[in-house]
């Protein structure tokens, strides 16, 4: 294969290697398969599509696509599923200096912008914490630590790689715009908008390209999938913007923004896909009311916790 080293193999070995390569290759995620199927089905309209329910609420448009999938095993768990556990966060944005480091922390429903000594711009999401040096050392990589969510626009400097450490995941930047989402208890993920980054976790090391996201799976492996950048980046524009997103995921994002604990009764029900667009400046009550109006779920407050149940 235009590679001398590869020519040392017999045809039979090359064939086996191709099969190994296939076995090691990425398949579309369940989410992508679902999307492909929905697209296919819509092109072969067999049924009246009366599953779109539209509702307009205040200045926002919220839409829902209940897909009517066969929800296999619609069992009710005895123990509620914890979607998001509220964190201990400050009530307003704080900047604390600790030695040579600065710790920036955000409260619920707010983002904060900071420019580092090298010109790198960072927008810190809600309920998040960023630790960075007052000024970067000349003889070391630029390193910052993140818990929560942030958008990075990194100033290119080939001599000083930029590292974001978030839990067990390390993102190495090679000049670029990307999001790191690493709230405690959620799967850590990196979404790349421009440029080129390298993700490291334990022995694993992978490069991702614009339009891809790397997610640290429950099995401790990194998984790369393509991502809709417009929606993924909507938080920076002050929007919840979800197209065909499982209800469970949407609820997690709501939890991370308002810092409210969320539990659910049934797992399969959380797989329902919804279309949802709403400004983040709205109060939690308004968001809950909008979701309830759609009839996709019954969301109620109990002891500071949002409970999600079937309608």
């Amino acid at each position, binding site marked *: *294969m*235009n*590679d001398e*080293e*590869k020519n040392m*193999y*017999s*045809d*039979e*070995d*090359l*064939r*086996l*290697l*191709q*099969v*190994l*390569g*296939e*076995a*090691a*290759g*990425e*398949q*579309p995620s369940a989410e992508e*398969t*679902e999307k*492909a*199927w929905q697209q*296919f*089905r819509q092109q*072969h309209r*067999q*049924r009246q599509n009366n599953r779109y329910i539209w509702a307009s609420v205040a200045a926002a448009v919220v839409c829902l696509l209940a897909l009517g999938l066969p929800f296999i095993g619609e069992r009710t768990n005895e123990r509620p599923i914890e979607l998001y556990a509220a964190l201990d966060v400050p009530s307003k944005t704080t900047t604390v200096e600790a030695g040579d480091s600065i710790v920036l922390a955000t409260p619920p429903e707010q983002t904060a912008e900071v420019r580092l000594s090298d010109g790198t711009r960072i927008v810190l999401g809600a309920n998040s914490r960023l630790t960075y040096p007052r000024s970067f050392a000349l003889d070391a990589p630029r390193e910052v630590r993140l818990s929560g969510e942030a958008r990075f626009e990194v100033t290119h400097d080939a001599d000083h790689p930029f590292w974001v450490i978030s839990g067990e995941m390390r993102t190495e930047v090679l000049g670029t715009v990307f999001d790191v989402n690493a709230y405690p208890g959620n799967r850590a993920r990196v979404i790349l908008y421009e440029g080129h980054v390298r993700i490291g976790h*334990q*022995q*694993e*090391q*992978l*490069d991702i390209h614009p339009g891809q996201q790397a997610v640290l799976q429950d099995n401790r*492996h990194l998984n790369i999938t*393509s991502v809709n950048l417009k929606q993924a980046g909507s938080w920076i524009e002050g929007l919840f913007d979800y197209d065909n997103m499982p209800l469970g995921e949407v609820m997690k994002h709501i939890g991370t923004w308002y810092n409210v604990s969320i539990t659910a009764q049934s797992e399969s029900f959380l797989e329902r896909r919804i279309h949802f667009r709403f400004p983040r400046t709205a109060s939690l009550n308004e968001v809950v009311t909008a979701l309830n109006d759609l009839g996709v779920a019954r969301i109620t407050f109990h002891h500071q916790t949002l409970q999600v149940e079937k309608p």
Partner: protein
Amino acid sequence: MIWKKKTDDKTTAFEGLFRQQYPPLVRHATQLLGDPEEARDVVGEAMEQAWQRWDTLAEAQRASWLFTTVRHLALNRLKHRQVVTDHAEAIREATVFDLQARYWEHERLLRQAEAVVEALGEPTRTIVRLCYFEQNTYRVAAERLGISPDTVKKHISKALRALREALGKKGDER
């Protein structure tokens, strides 16, 4: 009403096939074409054809029909690419045997290979993926991982040996 019932049955049956086969077919086509987007197009096209001729496809042959069709469409695209890339050349060479191999033979091998790859873990898996899924040269794979081409070669040999053992073959015997 009867017509509607029938098409609904078809939709339900097709949905099962689609959900089951879409991921592995896209993976297979991605390996052949070196482009996940084009792979999705090809699988979509094959699904479309399967939908059209649904009534003529016996249940037992649906999966193999889809597989063969995806291969056929993918290889056709490779042939029609204006510039015959090294990649296309390499794929055609390396898959001559596969063309003749029947679907089930490929499935059997693939299951074994998946088990082997799973058992070997990282970084072998990533190395195999870079070299034989994305079809990079050893040198490029080594650069991307920041390791030496020799290490890449060692991991590839290890994977090959493991698969051969799993298949009950000894050494280079053919």
